[in-house]
């Protein structure tokens, strides 16, 4: 969806603020919400793609105002309710509803390392054919889905060259919405800075963007 998370090319966001010797977490709650997000995803009720969409659908002003981990807290609460893990009453009271049957956690000390090492499924699947080959000129499609997508606005409609075929990956645009993995090839596509930003951009520079088959069309 076209919202504020899709930041590439926006201007007016100010200078980069740099903190020297930055800690991994600035407060213990940041670590806790980070870990809670990962532990709850281990229930496999939603995917990383769904998680990302959960941030994208936040109200733009909230997204911009909140710190990174505050967004995570906000998203997790919303997802816990919408996927039925907790009720809004329980969130408000802070205690389980009377008569709640206690579950058994799936993300435990014994299983943590296997969850962490699981990675993101991708594979070489000869049965899934690439639509494009290395060296081919392509155009990023001009699509504006209201759901999740990983095709940034600044690349839509722009022409580039396939530099590398990364193999087969789950398609986030459908997977985020439980509409199937729709596995397909992902390519590294090179766009010149001038194609993306016009003649005032450097003649030499370029942006490499990873793109699924369905984001591309022949040129």
């Amino acid at each position, binding site marked *: 969806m076209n919202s504020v998370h*899709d*930041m*590439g*090319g*926006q201007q007016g*966001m100010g*200078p*980069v*603020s*740099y*903190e020297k010797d930055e800690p*991994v*977490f*600035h*407060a*213990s*709650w940041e670590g*806790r*919400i980070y*870990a*809670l997000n*990962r*532990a709850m995803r281990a229930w496999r009720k939603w995917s990383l793609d769904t998680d*990302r969409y959960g941030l994208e*659908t*936040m109200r733009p002003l*909230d997204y911009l105002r*909140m*710190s*990174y981990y505050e967004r995570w*807290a*906000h998203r997790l*609460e919303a997802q816990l309710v919408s996927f039925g893990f*907790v009720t809004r009453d329980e*969130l*408000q*009271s*802070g*205690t389980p509803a009377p008569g709640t049957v206690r*579950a058994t*956690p799936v*993300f435990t*000390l014994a299983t*943590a390392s296997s969850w*962490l*090492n699981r*990675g*993101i499924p*991708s594979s070489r699947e000869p049965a899934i054919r690439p639509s494009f080959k290395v060296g081919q000129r392509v155009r990023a499609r001009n699509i504006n889905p209201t759901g999740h997508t*990983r095709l*940034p606005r600044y690349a839509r409609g722009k022409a580039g060259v396939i530099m590398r075929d*990364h193999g087969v*990956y789950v398609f986030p645009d459908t997977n985020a919405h439980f509409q199937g993995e729709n596995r397909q090839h992902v390519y590294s596509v090179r766009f010149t800075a001038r194609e993306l930003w016009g003649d005032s951009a*450097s003649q*030499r520079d*370029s942006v*490499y*963007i*990873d793109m*699924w088959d369905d984001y591309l069309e022949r040129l």
Partner: protein
Amino acid sequence: MGDSDKGAVDRREFLKGIAAGAVTGATQVTVHTQDHQHDHQDVPSDLALRVKALESLLVEKGLVDSSALDALIDTMEHKVGPRNGARVVARAWIDQAYKKRLLEDAPAAIAEMGYSSGQGDHMVVVENSPKVHNLIVCTLCSCYPWPVLGLPPVWYKSAPYRSRAVIDPRGILREFGTTLPDEVEVRVWDSTAELRYLVLPERPSGTEGMTEEQLAALVTRDAMVGVTRVTLPPSGGRA
């Protein structure tokens, strides 16, 4: 969506509720004592309480195990981080065969060093040279090569960096004190898929006699994201 739609009254009740929950919650919650109060972002003071209450609720419902959360946090704070990436870079600098493997099949070469998990499964290493400078960004969220660099710093996830890295990479580089001649080609890598990028910086001159450990000590997180170059300490002496 979400509880942002609730009105102000609802919000007050919500906060009152979680405050009560935090007090009555029967489950022990690990409280870290090394909290840094940090004011660079507008974080409401109730957030720590709210997260504590949320964890307490999820523990009581048997949905999460606090000790597993502790272990996860310990991993991110102490076991993964840019020192891992620095060792990969130093090895590539002293071992041409390793460097070749790293550039051709980064996941396997990184696994050789014992680092492999989570977001790093599909690593791609891009090499800086006198003619090419690489810069990593995730314009859509915060994708970052966790096993070799740990969790990303705030600036990497911030709007100024994410918005400008693709349209004005040389301006971003200047802010980090990295001025590139016009004839150097800048390649920006926007991490839109599940590939995770690491920059192999140029080895600085004057490091010929250094050991792998000494070289690794020179390599910074920022250089592996591509916003700076690796330099010798100001003294020019050995690490």
